[in-house]
């Protein structure tokens, strides 16, 4: 058997995220163009594999079998792989796991991953209504579980009660992420700033969350190239960023199967992180920069705990200490994250991958000095599943 190849992320780009006057296929074309701008040596004919990550394309754009539509619009002729993949908010991060395996095994050489959503419809009610279908519909959704804020608000209340986490600590997360969002012109809230006072005085969305504790829903698309080391060297002279380890863990779909002692404990994330670190032959201490799924401020706090960057229950104080800032112990969501860059579900994992790629190549907008190892994490659904990918400037030996 041939020796295992190494898979690397070469680069990528996103469309403008936000409430867009565009079709989902328009935004995928914009993201592909941005990806090509980032990798001048990339030719569409080089791409032999395609993974399209989207949740809402079937319902919102009447595009159930999305991959051939993307093939046509981008002028691709894939020969190894041409699929749509859906794990909700982790779609394009899951695609990275698939691409890694396909490239390491030699089945594919150059894979385009694009994630995209058209969330906003001619009538706004449809967006929230569609979200009834992204949970365990006949059970939790029929109880009214649709949009995420109420569920995560209960998580926050429980974390505050059990561990003493405060609204001020949560506000530190959003203020930090707004500072990181500065300069990312394609972000949903590009150009906006946030102070502690504004964060704490914002209108209530779902107690205890104010407006800035919640990420927006966004239209948008992202695109990245994952390739074999050899092909990456041929198309780019930038430092190689290796896909070192991955982990994905789901334990349930419905609330009755929640795996934690309470909503404040996320053992399924802890497990996904442990698997990814083991495969990457690294530990949380090795990480220089991370992108975690900050759909709400409390999410980032719990993720810092469960991924092993601080002790359980201390995530709030850890974030408020400045640990997640650019000069902190573990700079987190350095492109603004979901809170500021926005959240088109299937596009978010690849957006995170772009930021880690740039950080490890030394060309990020808010650059972490000498960043050599990084991580991306997405949760999906109402915290039903966790997806973790670990990156490094060196391959696993």
């Amino acid at each position, binding site marked *: 058997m041939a020796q295992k190849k190494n898979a690397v992320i070469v680069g990528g780009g996103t469309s403008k995220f936000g409430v867009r006057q565009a079709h989902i296929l328009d935004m995928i074309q914009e993201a592909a163009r941005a990806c090509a701008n980032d990798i001048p040596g990339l030719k569409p004919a080089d791409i032999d594999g395609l993974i399209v990550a989207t949740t809402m394309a079937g319902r919102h754009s009447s595009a159930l079998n999305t991959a051939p539509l993307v093939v046509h619009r981008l002028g691709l002729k894939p020969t190894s792989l041409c699929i749509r993949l859906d794990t909700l908010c982790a779609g394009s991060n899951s695609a990275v796991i698939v691409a890694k395996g396909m490239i390491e095994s030699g089945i594919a050489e150059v894979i385009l991953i694009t994630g995209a959503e058209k969330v906003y419809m001619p009538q706004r009610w449809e967006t929230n*209504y569609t979200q009834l279908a992204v949970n365990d*519909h*006949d059970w939790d959704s029929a*109880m009214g579980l649709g949009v995420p804020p109420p569920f995560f608000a209960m998580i926050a209340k429980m974390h505050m*009660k059990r561990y003493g986490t405060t609204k001020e600590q949560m506000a530190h997360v959003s203020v930090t992420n707004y500072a990181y969002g500065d300069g990312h012109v394609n972000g949903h809230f590009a150009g906006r700033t946030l102070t502690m006072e504004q964060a704490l005085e914002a209108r209530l969305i*779902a107690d205890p969350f104010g407006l800035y504790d919640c990420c927006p829903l966004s239209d948008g698309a992202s695109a990245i190239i994952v390739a074999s080391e050899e092909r990456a060297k041929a198309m780019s002279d930038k430092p190689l960023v290796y896909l070192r380890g991955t982990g994905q863990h789901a334990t349930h779909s419905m609330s*009755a199967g929640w795996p934690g002692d*309470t909503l404040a404990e996320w053992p399924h994330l802890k497990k996904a992180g442990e698997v990814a670190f083991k495969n990457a032959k690294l530990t949380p201490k090795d990480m220089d920069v991370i992108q975690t799924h900050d759909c709400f401020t409390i999410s980032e706090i719990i993720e810092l705990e469960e991924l092993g960057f601080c002790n359980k229950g201390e995530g709030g104080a850890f974030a408020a200490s400045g640990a997640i800032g650019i000069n902190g112990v573990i700079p987190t969501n350095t492109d603004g994250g979901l809170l500021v860059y926005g959240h088109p579900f299937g596009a978010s994992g690849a957006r995170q991958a772009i930021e880690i790629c740039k950080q490890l190549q030394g060309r990020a907008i808010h650059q972490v000095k000498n960043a050599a190892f990084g991580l991306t994490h997405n949760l999906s659904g109402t915290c039903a599943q966790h997806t973790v990918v670990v990156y490094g400037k060196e391959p696993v030996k």
Partner: protein
Amino acid sequence: MAELQKAEITGTPALNGTYISEMDMWPFETQEFNRIYPFYDNLRAGKFTTTKCKKCGHVTYPPQVICPKCWAEELEWVELPQRAKVVTLTETQAGAPIGFEPPLIMAWLTFGEKSPLKHLLGRIIHCKEGELKEGDEVKFVTFSVPAHPIEVKKDTKICDRVFYAFEPVK
């Protein structure tokens, strides 16, 4: 606005007045579309039930066709406790999905150490905003939800439906 839409706005005239099942907010509860339909029959009788594995004894929720623990097909229906305690709750004033009138109150419920069903996200009805507190006891309650049609050969059968929620114990 709703009346105006029905009368004058016809994006796809062929669909006017038709029931679109893929947009339905409630389950398809009937035997024709669901092998766990006894759950809904039991709801109509005021019972909160689920399936228990006859091979390994595992009780699962929601009810299933095979046991998720040992994959046995031999399952039986058992009753679940109808009273629970509120661990934490959330009240939605704005942004609730269409069909759920605000305030939409949802609570994280626990059913006690002895219950095979440990916790559940439950909608709380018959309750005013600000009335429910952590630690309160709630009880199971059923109500009818809109019926839907299904085609049976050349006829249309109307399927009555039911669902459940919880209400404060007063």
